[in-house]
């Protein structure tokens, strides 16, 4: 990360983190005096610059994202368009209204359903964000500022550039707002740094592995609200209506893009595709279609050769699944030396290495009860389900999936970029940041 004034600090030390947290805390008072619509305008004006082809922020983002985030230029462009498309004034205003139908409650007491209430953003929101998915850090930053909470952000590895550039844009567009946001990096093992960051927090959001979330949970001050986004898994369920020969290629393309987006590092990226038996194309046939679609996707969205910090794991995945297929049945298709995608077809669920780097398992299902049983164990970690081809069974299936743990059920093509007002892991992300005050 490159310094932008004092707003972006790399390799921070506990003392500087603590000092910054104290400074941000003091900014809360000034931020609260600002009307929320001015915050939306300021944030949106910066976000929209990332969509302007000629804007220096966008140009620099596209130049630096490939090396920062380990993605190809084509993938960087797709990610930036998808992320920044939700950073506009219109989209941010809609996100705000999804959680607060009258956003004025963030400025003053308002009448809401017969009660006079006021939503107060935390004096300081500290945000620890997982690495690998560019833009997640900016999304976190936007959420805190939208509820008028100063925020100290630790972007994940590979997500530094957009946070840095957004803060730079904010300093150019709205100096009064940038004083309420700082991005700092420190090594995750540096527990002294994390403790310093958390000491003054009134809200903490943490994105990461279950172990990371547990560590932050044990370190969080009791007065701080802890909002946890632990690792999630997403999957696709395909019904036989999507397996007709005239539509299956399009469905496979949508699934391949959902798998490949973010090089499969996002919680919204599927790792498992469940395909109904008895359709025009059988589940193994869909595996072959998905393999072809993955190859096509790799041509339009190539992975960087160096993207392959996961390449050792990829070799292990391919080798082990090929051995399993040879020993117990199934098929494995992959892009060989030229592409990282791997499709594993298993007629029965079996344990194997984690799918990685555009790797996905395809398994058959037959009957809704069996489908529910097979997904059941994933429930506590389930997030997005791409559901298609279910015809008039869609509502019933969605209900079962929701009861299992799914919090977002969409067509496979929409898995990658949830809108800013989505129920992130089943919760209203802005509402859960604030504390409500009631005037009786």
């Amino acid at each position, binding site marked *: 990360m490159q310094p932008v004034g004092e707003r972006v600090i790399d390799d921070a030390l506990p003392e500087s983190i603590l000092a910054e947290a104290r400074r941000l805390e003091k900014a809360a008072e000034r931020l609260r005096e600002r009307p929320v619509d001015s915050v939306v305008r300021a944030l949106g004006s910066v976000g929209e610059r990332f969509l302007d082809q000629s804007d220096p922020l966008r140009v620099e983002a596209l130049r630096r994202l490939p090396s920062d985030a380990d993605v190809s230029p084509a993938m960087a462009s797709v990610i930036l368009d998808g992320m920044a498309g939700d950073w506009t004034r219109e989209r941010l205003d809609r996100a705000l209204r999804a959680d607060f139908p009258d956003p004025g409650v963030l400025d003053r007491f308002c009448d809401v359903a017969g009660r006079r209430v006021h939503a107060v953003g935390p004096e300081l929101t500290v945000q620890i964000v997982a690495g690998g998915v560019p833009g997640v850090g900016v999304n976190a930053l936007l959420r805190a500022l939208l509820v008028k909470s100063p925020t100290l952000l630790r972007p994940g590895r590979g997500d530094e550039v957009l946070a840095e550039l957004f803060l730079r844009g904010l300093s150019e567009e709205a100096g009064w707002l940038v004083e309420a946001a700082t991005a700092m990096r420190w090594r*995750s093992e540096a527990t002294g740094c994390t403790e310093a960051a958390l000491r003054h927090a009134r809200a903490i959001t943490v994105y990461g592995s279950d172990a990371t979330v547990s560590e932050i949970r044990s370190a969080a001050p009791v007065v701080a609200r802890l909002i946890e986004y632990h690792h999630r898994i997403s*999957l696709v369920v395909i019904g036989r209506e999507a397996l007709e020969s005239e539509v299956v290629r399009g469905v496979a393309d949508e699934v391949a893009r959902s798998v490949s987006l973010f090089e*499969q590092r996002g919680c919204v990226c599927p790792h498992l595709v469940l395909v109904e038996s008895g359709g025009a194309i059988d589940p193994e046939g869909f595996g072959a279609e998905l393999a072809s679609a993955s190859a096509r996707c790799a041509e339009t969205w190539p992975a960087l050769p160096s993207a392959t910090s996961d390449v050792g794991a990829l070799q292990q995945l391919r080798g082990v699944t090929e051995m399993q297929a040879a020993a117990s049945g199934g098929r494995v298709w992959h892009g060989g030396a030229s592409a990282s995608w791997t499709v594993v077809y298993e007629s029965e669920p079996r344990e194997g*290495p984690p799918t990685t780097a555009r790797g996905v398992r395809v398994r058959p299902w037959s009957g809704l009860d069996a489908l529910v049983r097979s997904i059941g164990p*994933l429930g506590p970690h389930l997030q997005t389900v791409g559901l298609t081809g279910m015809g008039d069974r869609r509502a019933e299936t969605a209900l079962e999936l929701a009861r299992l743990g799914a919090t977002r059920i969409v067509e496979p093509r929409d898995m990658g970029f949830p809108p800013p007002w989505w129920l992130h892991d089943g919760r209203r992300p802005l509402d859960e940041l604030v504390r409500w005050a009631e005037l009786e």
Partner: protein
Amino acid sequence: MSRQDKARVLDLVADPPGSAGYLRAAATALAGAMTGDPEALTADWDRWALAAFRHQFGGCPPLRAWWTARGVTPSTVERWQDVPPVPAEAFKYFDFRSPHDLEPEAVFVTSGTTKGSGRRGRHAVLSLDLYLASMNAPMRQALDPEGVRPDVVSLVPSATARPDSSLSVMVTEGARVLGREVYEWVDADGGWVDEEIARFDAATRDRPVLVLATALSLVHLLERPGLGRVLPPGSTVMETGGFKGVDTEVSREALYEGVAEAFAVDPDRIVNEYGMTELLSQLWEPVLTEGPTVRGCHRPAPWLRVRALDPVSLNELPEGASGLLAFYDLANFGSVSHVVTQDVGAVVDGRVRLEGRLLGSEPRGCSRALDELMSTRGAARG
């Protein structure tokens, strides 16, 4: 019998490759050569390596199915390099015993990851004699080349406490073979055994001491005041296990500095061992015989060949180029000899320069892979 003739023993075995009789004959011949004439294995390496492949093809159904699916059979393979290497991860999902129905004499289990037990790799050992024969001579050369027969302090749980740990078996057996008196300072759970420490202190020190330890146990030792001892000149410390599981921020250099100070040993007499459950042979830093300039380079046993492979194509890389490390280990005759790991390094003049694991230390993304719900990757040697 000439060196080549030793490998010809296998041609005379009545039992076919893949059978218990063939394994017995091979293990006996190999163990004999490892102990008495290791260069014989070097001289006739190709013959031994292809014999191992034929045996494993014949005796292990999962390997036979996989190799056959790839069009690789004993009639198509002319060079050992053409045998597809098995991913180390496969030890978590397959039993590679060759022959498959022979009862193992030991089963070594990987230690899992630092954050959760995960699914563990299992290596069934059909001939402990072969394992021990492969272990002793390289260990002696690396740790006691002068043949002083030191007293040994072990900071690794004993083989009695952890029979499923290849490291525990190696350390216990190594201490027995190399050492005069053995002091086991830690119990099965890694806790300090005060009685053993007191017994060590009470004994007269008239010869050098060899400390056998993992990096983690050395970190713990340095964290507990009062455990350091002034060891006699010529004492040696073996460190193994890498830094996986060490949550503190200590570097290898800092650890070695601390160890050298705590034990008053020459830092150049700290020897690193590189091994894994999936391989029965080990690699050693030959610092005691070749000096500190070879620090970071590990010497494989003569019956272990190492290659660096292109991580994408798995083609062999030229000397000095970094890639995924693949091993062909004759000590694995009863399981699978050709193994490709996720470890990265280069091969220079037959030595391995380790560069660490390819996987990033910080998890990437907020996605949780399906199988991580049931298993976790990155097992270390148990």
